[in-house]
């Protein structure tokens, strides 16, 4: 098996829905422990890009590698790769018929075929990591959006993934709930979890990202460490976008906890 210094490598991804082009040649790589944050205007293919990585959306062209193994065109092995790439969704997508703890353990039992006792322990441990152990026996409908999202992060964590893909994890939440989810994400990032995050939360991008990638017109147009955003000429478009953001959304551009 080919070894690779990158956890995830994405090469020249193209995707179109009919006539509508969504991605036109996007490439990047992620090293262990990095948090890459994708920002940019809506409709520039950021979410589609994440979904192309674990093949929830199949790209028209281009390749994705996990530890040097090709994820694209992997046939039924895709389920093996997906176990190793967690995903957190904008609308949580918790399993409505399962309590929080069973949401976290169901894939451990059915996909990883863990023993029930070990799976339960692991699930409770992950709920503790996101501060949700007291809510283990509650159903998704009984949780706030922020709580539900934290459970869904625990569900992703429980699989011990090599990387977690966050698809606008706070876009459905109000500012207070957003904060509790971002705190969990920041903790994961600090603990060395490898993360790819699509978000509109500039505070998170500035404070947690090892690299910020600004997407516009179906491409990555600017990229670099977040510390360069305020001054570097490579981030001219990003600054314009962020500035507009601050102007229209009050203080969310400077929120930085």
């Amino acid at each position: 098996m080919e070894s690779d210094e990158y956890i995830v490598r994405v090469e020249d991804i193209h995707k179109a829905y009919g006539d509508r082009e969504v991605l036109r040649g996007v490439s990047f790589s992620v090293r262990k422990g990095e948090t890459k944050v994708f920002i940019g205007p809506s409709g520039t293919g950021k979410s589609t890009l994440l979904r192309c990585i674990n093949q929830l959306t199949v790209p028209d062209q281009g390749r994705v590698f996990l530890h040097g193994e090709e994820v694209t065109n992997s046939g039924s092995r895709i389920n093996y790769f997906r176990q190793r790439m967690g995903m957190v969704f904008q609308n949580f997508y918790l399993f409505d018929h399962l309590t929080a703890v069973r949401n976290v353990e169901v894939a451990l039992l059915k996909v990883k075929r863990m023993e029930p006792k070990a799976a339960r322990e692991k699930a409770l441990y992950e709920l503790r990591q996101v501060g949700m152990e007291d809510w283990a026996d509650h159903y998704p409908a009984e949780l706030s959006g922020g709580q539900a999202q934290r459970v869904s992060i625990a569900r992703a964590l429980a699989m011990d993934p090599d990387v977690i893909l966050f698809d606008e994890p706070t876009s459905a939440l109000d500012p207070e709930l957003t904060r509790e989810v971002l705190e969990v994400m920041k903790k994961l990032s600090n603990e060395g979890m490898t993360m790819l995050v699509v978000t509109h939360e500039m505070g998170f991008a500035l404070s947690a990202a090892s690299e910020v990638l600004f997407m516009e017109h179906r491409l990555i147009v600017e990229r670099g460490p977040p510390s360069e955003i305020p001054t570097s000429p490579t981030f001219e478009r990003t600054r314009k976008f962020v500035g507009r953001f601050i102007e229209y959304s009050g203080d969310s551009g400077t929120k930085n906890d």
Partner: protein
Amino acid sequence: MIEASFFTEVLLPPLIKGGVISLELIALAAPFGLLMGIAIAVGRTYGGRLVSQACRLYVIFIKGCPLLLLLFIIYFGLPSLGIVFTPFVAAVIGFILCNGAYNSEYIRGALLSIKEGQMIAASALGMTRAQAIRHIILPQALRRAIPGISNEFIYLIKYSSLAYMITVIEITGAGKLVAAKYFAFFETFTVIGLFYLGLVSLATLALGFLERKLAIPGLVSK
């Protein structure tokens, strides 16, 4: 006025015997009818083009065929193709085919009501499509389909009496024989009516209990 001994010595023994046959027909047909309903509904919703179309045609065929005719075809018709069933087996097969087709429509409706995010999240965790259907989609859909399935089960209790038309001496058939022999139609059919009423009431209570027991906040309310 008919004496009490007519009920205990003449009427009840054959009715009890027939009642047991009725219960057997129902108890055998119901679980397989449910399994068949699940299979047809999943095939139609998640199967490929061919499977999906086959399931659709099956349901159209059963819906368009009176159950009595279906029983006649199975019991009287199939022997000319060399397929011979006992009356009891023919009746059970007919009931399963019918019950399964109608159940599948209730279950299909419930499957379509499950939000697509459930399948997406299951896939993202590395579940195969089959695992996702089995562990995530069906447990939700079946809960939502309980009222429909209950309804169909109650129909099954009552259309089990059609088995008499292919010579299965279940309770209605047994009653018909006794009633004609002793010219006691009113008494006999009243007793049989009470049997069905009792059975349907019991089933309604039990299924209502099951529905509440399996209810989940936000998914199916109590």
